[in-house]
């Protein structure tokens, strides 16, 4: 296997002296191969040890340590991002437009947020006969994104600068001003890793705003973060332009209910089976997330105040 890896080659050190050459060469090649074999064996050991995740990986302490060292480093390096961002902006738009754009974006974000949730809130309020008093107000811990995985890794994960010291734990919902970002999958004292909804490993329960039908939103793994949406009820048909919000998990982990996910852009019938798959454009652009909020606090249950009944 290793026969072709270490072909004899000239080295400046060894070729300096002719007597060394005869004995030195093979030894050097042997040492080189030994190093390669050792390194490859070390890699395989690591992969095997870390692959059985259910048993608790021995690599975890290493990850903890790495996060402890690199978390602050990434945090510092992110501060150096401002000039980089500015440079990028300068290419894209003129300074004069920037302030105006910023203001419009802010307005737009607010209006979109209102629009996305009002439908759902109204529907839900009618559906539950006004049992739900108000849209649940969650306690949020703000955090900044300090590290993003490249497309080469195929996984859509980001690091945020809040960890267990800030009350962030695994399986907490992460969102920003426009919608659902993902959930926390790993935490250390000062950092947390967030699995974005666009990752192929991610599945979120989603509800159609217009018809309240339930379904599942799964990531497609592409750069824009496009999502697939499958309805539980095969007869229900999503329409282009329908909005999707989370329907929440039991105990609010990993997802709290009522967070906007995205909008349906196209619907294709499933081949060979009932039902249809919709393509969702997420509200959150996965390449542009910066400040996010982690849902850390109550209500643990949606508020259910008893209705003052007149009849009984």
């Amino acid at each position, binding site marked *: 296997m290793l026969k072709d*890896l270490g*072909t004899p*080659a*000239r*080295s400046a*050190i060894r*070729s300096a002296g002719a007597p060394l050459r005869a004995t030195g060469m093979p030894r050097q090649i042997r*040492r*080189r191969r030994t*190093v*390669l074999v050792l*390194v*490859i064996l*070390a*890699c*395989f*050991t*690591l*992969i095997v*040890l*870390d*692959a059985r995740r259910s048993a608790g990986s021995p*690599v975890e302490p*290493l*990850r903890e340590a*790495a*996060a402890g060292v*690199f*978390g602050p*480093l*990434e*945090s510092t*390096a992110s501060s*150096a*991002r401002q000039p*980089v*961002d500015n440079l990028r902006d300068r290419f894209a738009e003129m300074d004069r437009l920037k302030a105006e754009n910023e203001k419009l974006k802010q307005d737009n974000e607010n209006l979109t947020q209102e629009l996305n949730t009002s439908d759902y809130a109204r529907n839900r309020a009618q559906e539950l006969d006004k049992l739900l008093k108000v849209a649940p107000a969650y306690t949020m811990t703000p955090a900044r994104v*300090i*590290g*993003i*995985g*490249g*497309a*080469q*890794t*195929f*996984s*859509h*994960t*980001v*690091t945020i600068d809040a960890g267990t010291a800030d009350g962030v734990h695994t399986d907490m919902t992460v969102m920003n001003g426009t919608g659902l970002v993902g959930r926390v999958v*790993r935490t*250390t004292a000062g950092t947390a*890793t967030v*699995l974005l909804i666009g990752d*192929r*490993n991610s599945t979120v329960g989603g509800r159609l705003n217009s018809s309240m039908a339930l379904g599942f939103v799964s990531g497609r793994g*592409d*750069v824009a973060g496009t999502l697939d949406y499958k309805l539980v009820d095969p007869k229900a048909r999503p329409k282009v332009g329908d909005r999707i919000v989370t329907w929440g998990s039991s105990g609010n982990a990993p997802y709290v209910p009522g967070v906007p996910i995205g909008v349906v852009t196209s619907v294709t019938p499933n081949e060979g089976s009932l039902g249809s798959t919709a393509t969702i454009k997420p509200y959150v652009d996965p*390449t542009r997330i910066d400040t996010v909020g982690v849902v850390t606090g109550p209500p643990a249950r949606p508020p259910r105040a008893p209705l003052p009944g007149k009849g009984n």
Partner: protein
Amino acid sequence: MIALRIGLAALFLMVAVTVQTSVLTNIAVAGVTCDLTLIVVIALALSRGPEWGAIAGFVGGLLLDVVPPADHTAGRWALALAIAGYVAGLIRRETSSGPVGPLGVALTVVLGTAVSFFIYSATGSLLHDPSVDWGEFGVRLGIAAGYDVVGAIVVIPLVMWIMGRVQPARERRVAP
């Protein structure tokens, strides 16, 4: 001298991993970032040979595997970068005893990107990682290779120059 060299190499790798995960992702092209760690590994391999390439690749890859945004099985980038570093070291030894020319460096970087990205994806497939998407492989490899060559133009001469400065005089190469 050897301790200084190892310290410098470790410093380069740490800076590369930090910058790659937190700064370079903001200027990603279609989501693909510049593999700064790979470039540093190749630079170390080109200046010190295959053993250094393999070990630097292992350490740099391991950092990429465990530093926060990573959520895949540890050891995958380590294996990919170790082999890429080893191959880069062999190229330097085989072409000539003198320094590798700019075109040679660029080709080494392209080869290193291809080898490392392929090994990373292949190990992912073997481990049944659902996120590996071979349909996207070609496009991302193309972008990554181009981007890495651009990054290498800046990084490789710098790293090789610094590593050359801390080389003992008896090992210093005479230009052909």
